[in-house]
């Protein structure tokens, strides 16, 4: 069935090649500016990635005119403000972010004020408030999970008011996403597994969500197939360049999918659990994903049945419902393997969520913004048994 309406807009150019961060000249020539400010973090700087990028820029006749390396877990408003001052003072003409989701989101928010001036929170918090393209932003993701290198969203934590601010705008989609598997080789197994499960959750929720379209479906399905095939390999052997490359590509495809069709109650449960019990987002998604699929089962049976073969499940001769169950089984097999590798929890009880907190989670999820996009109405009473099973 076709959706009543959809829009698809994905202007970010994506380039992929192992080692490409040292060979960016053709892309930089097209963008046409020379002075870049680099946003990253200290870990990536310490392992030499920022210097490698600076060398690549110099070889291409460009210059790294400044760096901001203080990005913390959860992109923070105070960092955005400090970084913006540094970018403005540096004489930069554009920004390169190299890092995970927090680094990329920080750079996206910085670019708003760098390009447009004004006050980030007062003038731009919200949806589609920008009126023209921002200054060039090149993204080099070093994790394969958030997909922020291609999405129109930046999430920034306002420490003072203790709230997450969302900036959603087509002009936040970066100009260029550089997918270089070599920059992900140092990602530890646990982070590889949890960020990979985040990408899988993006793609599955985008595929079954109420805003899905044939366009988002194509990207989501492609991502799911790659993740199911390569996530265990990338986790087992971080040096497996093919698996690393596949995961980077999959995370970006999942990003394109969910920036168009959103996510649902799995993310809702993960958001609430993260906020209440400080559980890392990717781990919470990994635990909840099969239970969220079960919660939505009646509404998404047909789509799950279509996914099962992409997840390497044999559905020959199976009725639609049985085939759909195979898709959930496939997710459980995957998380089971990652659990056996010691890289991923499969139950909430493993990650510090207390049993008496489950009701609090169920109570808060219907109010999470993602519930609006979930295929089945998110009801506290109906959701609670699924959260209990996830415990």
């Amino acid at each position, binding site marked *: 069935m076709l959706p*009543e*309406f959809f*829009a698809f807009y994905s202007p970010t150019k994506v380039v992929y090649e192992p080692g490409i961060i040292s060979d960016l000249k053709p892309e930089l020539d097209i963008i046409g500016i020379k002075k870049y400010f680099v946003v990253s973090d200290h870990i990536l700087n310490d392992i030499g990635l920022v210097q490698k990028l600076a060398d690549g820029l110099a070889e291409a006749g460009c210059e790294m005119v400044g760096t901001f390396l203080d990005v913390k877990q959860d992109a923070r408003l105070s960092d955005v403000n400090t970084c913006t001052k540094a970018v403005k003072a540096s004489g930069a003409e554009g920004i390169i972010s190299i890092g995970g989701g927090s680094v990329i989101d920080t750079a996206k928010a910085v670019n708003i004020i760098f390009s447009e001036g004004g006050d980030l929170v007062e003038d731009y*918090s*919200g*949806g*589609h*408030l920008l009126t023209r393209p921002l200054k060039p932003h090149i993204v080099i993701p070093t994790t394969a999970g958030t997909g922020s290198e291609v999405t129109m969203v930046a999430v920034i934590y306002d420490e003072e008011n203790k*709230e*997450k*601010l*969302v900036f*959603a705008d087509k002009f936040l989609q970066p100009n260029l996403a550089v997918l270089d598997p070599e920059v992900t080789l140092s990602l530890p197994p646990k982070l590889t597994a949890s960020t990979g499960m985040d990408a899988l959750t993006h793609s599955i929720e985008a595929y079954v969500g109420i*805003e899905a379209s044939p366009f988002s479906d194509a990207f989501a399905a492609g991502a799911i197939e790659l993740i199911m095939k390569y996530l265990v390999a990338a986790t087992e052997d971080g040096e497996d360049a093919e698996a690393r490359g596949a995961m980077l590509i999959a995370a970006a495809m999942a990003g394109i999918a969910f920036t168009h069709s*959103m996510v649902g109650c799995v993310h809702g449960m993960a958001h609430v659990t993260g906020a209440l019990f400080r559980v890392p987002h990717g781990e919470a998604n990994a635990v909840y994903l099969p239970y969220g699929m079960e919660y939505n089962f009646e509404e998404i049976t047909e789509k799950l049945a279509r996914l099962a073969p992409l997840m390497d499940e044999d559905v020959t001769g199976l009725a639609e419902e049985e085939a759909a169950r195979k898709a959930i089984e496939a997710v459980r097999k995957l998380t089971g393997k990652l659990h056996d590798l010691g890289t991923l929890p499969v139950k909430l009880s493993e990650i510090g969520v207390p049993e008496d907190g489950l009701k609090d989670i169920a109570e808060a999820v*219907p*109010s*999470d*913004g*993602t*519930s*609006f996009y979930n295929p089945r109405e*998110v009801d506290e009473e109906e959701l609670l048994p699924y959260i209990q099973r996830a415990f």
Partner: protein
Amino acid sequence: MGLFESAEKFEEVLAGFFRQLGQNKQIADKLLKSKMIIRFKYTDPDLVIVVDCSGDEIDVRPHDTETKATVEMSMTSDVAHKFWFGKVNLTKALTRKEMIAKGPIPKILKLLPAIKPAYEMYPKYLEENGYSEYNIH
């Protein structure tokens, strides 16, 4: 020219509906819990209405352009009218800038499940209060 012939008529209809929502315990309790102050900025005809959920009860204040709002929602009066019938695809409206949301989006989205019962109330409200010519249900 929008569906409503004047800002006065639109204010009468919509502010009246907001006040009715404020009297509905099921909806009001959730809105009050949010503590949000929402400014609706309508065009064609032009009207500003503030729905203040920061106190003990919901206060509906047309023409309030001074209070600092948590969220500002801008749209035409026709889009607003259709919204309260549950006939606006929010993603479509935001993507096409038919509806502009300024402020914390997660808080806005959190309110949507709370106001869902309002979609059934709006056509009834129009019928029961002499505004049946605006009922597009």
